[in-house]
């Protein structure tokens, strides 16, 4: 099991104690699919309890990098990762680290809402139960925990009277918030989001964006999005990726979102965010 240096400390304590800590750090990260190098030499420090957006054209390796943050690429048989990815200063690819535990602490929300074919209640409670949720002794009951997670996902008011209905009966936007509640229920510290609103209508999209801003008070959020306006609206930091001549994804520019969208330093970033490709 991964040993986290911050064990016993809340994230607020950690932030106070060590302002230089990053939620995720990559060093010379290279990811291959077979012989094809999908991303190369990525060096990135993700700030704690902030929303970081990863933007860039299709095929630039955004999602590949995101999946490297919780070892999801290992589920792809041909994928190979080189370099270092640290989560709270710990190398998550070290031999003694359990990828399942990594994925518990670094949750993920996908493009297409994928609730289980179970009740709304069970969607939230199931993962928590599997991950050793214990009631009593000053801890919340499962009912209380489900309610709390649904509140955090800004879904409680819409589902409190139908917790036993199937999660699949909800609208797309509600299903995505249910997936966020499900991710929260296993107490992650980072939530990775891969195009979380691209399948949703504009109102549902704005609800997810507002939710992301709220969640950033407690969690580190890393979101991959094709929607630049969304990145500009929700994120504190933005990383722009593009494809190099060998088609491998590279990190071009990374900085505060306000700077990236008003005064990017690299002409490739400028061309991309102003929508000009010559």
């Amino acid at each position, binding site marked *: 099991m991964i040993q986290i240096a911050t064990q016993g400390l809340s994230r607020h304590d950690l932030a106070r104690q060590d302002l230089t800590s990053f939620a995720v750090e990559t060093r010379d990260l290279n990811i291959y699919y077979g012989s094809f190098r999908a991303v190369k030499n990525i060096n990135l420090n993700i700030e704690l309890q902030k929303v970081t957006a990863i933007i860039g054209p299709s095929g630039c390796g955004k999602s590949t990098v995101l999946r490297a943050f919780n070892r999801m690429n290992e589920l792809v048989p041909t994928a190979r990762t080189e370099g270092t990815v640290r989560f709270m200063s710990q190398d998550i690819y070290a031999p003694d680290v359990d990828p399942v535990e990594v994925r518990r602490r670094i949750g993920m929300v996908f493009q297409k809402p994928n609730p289980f074919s179970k009740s709304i209640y069970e969607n939230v409670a199931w993962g928590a139960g599997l991950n050793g949720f214990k009631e009593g002794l000053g801890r919340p009951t499962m009912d209380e925990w489900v309610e709390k997670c649904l509140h955090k996902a800004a879904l409680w008011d819409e589902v409190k009277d139908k917790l036993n209905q199937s999660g699949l009966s909800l609208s797309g936007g509600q299903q995505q918030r249910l997936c966020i509640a499900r991710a929260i229920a296993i107490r992650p510290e980072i939530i990775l989001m891969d195009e979380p609103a691209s399948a949703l209508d504009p109102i549902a999209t704005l609800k997810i964006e507002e939710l992301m801003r709220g969640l950033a008070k407690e969690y580190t959020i890393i979101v991959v999005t094709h929607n*630049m*306006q969304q990145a*500009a609206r929700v994120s504190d930091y933005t990383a722009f990726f593009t494809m190099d001549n060998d088609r491998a994804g590279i990190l071009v520019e990374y900085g505060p979102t306000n700077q990236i*969208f*008003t*005064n*990017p330093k690299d002409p490739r*970033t*400028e061309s991309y*965010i*102003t*929508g*000009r*490709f*010559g």
Partner: protein
Amino acid sequence: MSPSSTRETFDRNMKSLLEHVLVLGSMVEQAVEKSVAALKRHDHAAARRVYAGDQKINEKRYAIENECVALIATQQPMARDVRFLAAILEIITELERIGDYAKGIAKINLLLVDEPDDPSISRQLEQMAELSLSMLRRGLDAFVAGDAAAARVIPADDDAVDNMYNRIYQELTQRMIDGTTTVDYANHLMWAAHNLERLADRVSNICERTVYVSTGNLKELDPSDDLTLLE
């Protein structure tokens, strides 16, 4: 803004916007020229035309502002594009204020009745207008060309405009002391000179926006006025 295959419509809209800014610049330039010339000739009919024409300047400014807001709302400009539109919103405000200075000079003209020719002050006001308007033309040229280097040097001419203003101020003050002119008359002409001095300050603000569009840095280019008082 640069030619592209992906944002041709937006680029066309931005180019059109820039042309409208130049039209507005030309309108205020002519208004200032005419107001100073009319003041020299005691031409009240011309002054009335300048005074009434300010309404068209205001309308032009509002039309450009509306177009800017529409482009921001519909095109989601980023980076240099958003800096360019923000700069235009500022520049048209400066131009509209310069138009107000021309209107102010026209109003002064209308308030001065039965005053004799004053070749000395008229000549100096013309020189002030000439230099200030030259700054304005060069400032707008630099903006259109996106030439930050050119924009940075234009505000230096503001010192010469300030010196001209100070000379007019001193001459009129001396005349009031000597009793060779009325306080009312001297006061009005000082105000006309003050308007031209402020015109040059507005040009410095326009130049700051040109530098901003090119570099992303907002910085005062001519802080000398502020510093002088602190010395």
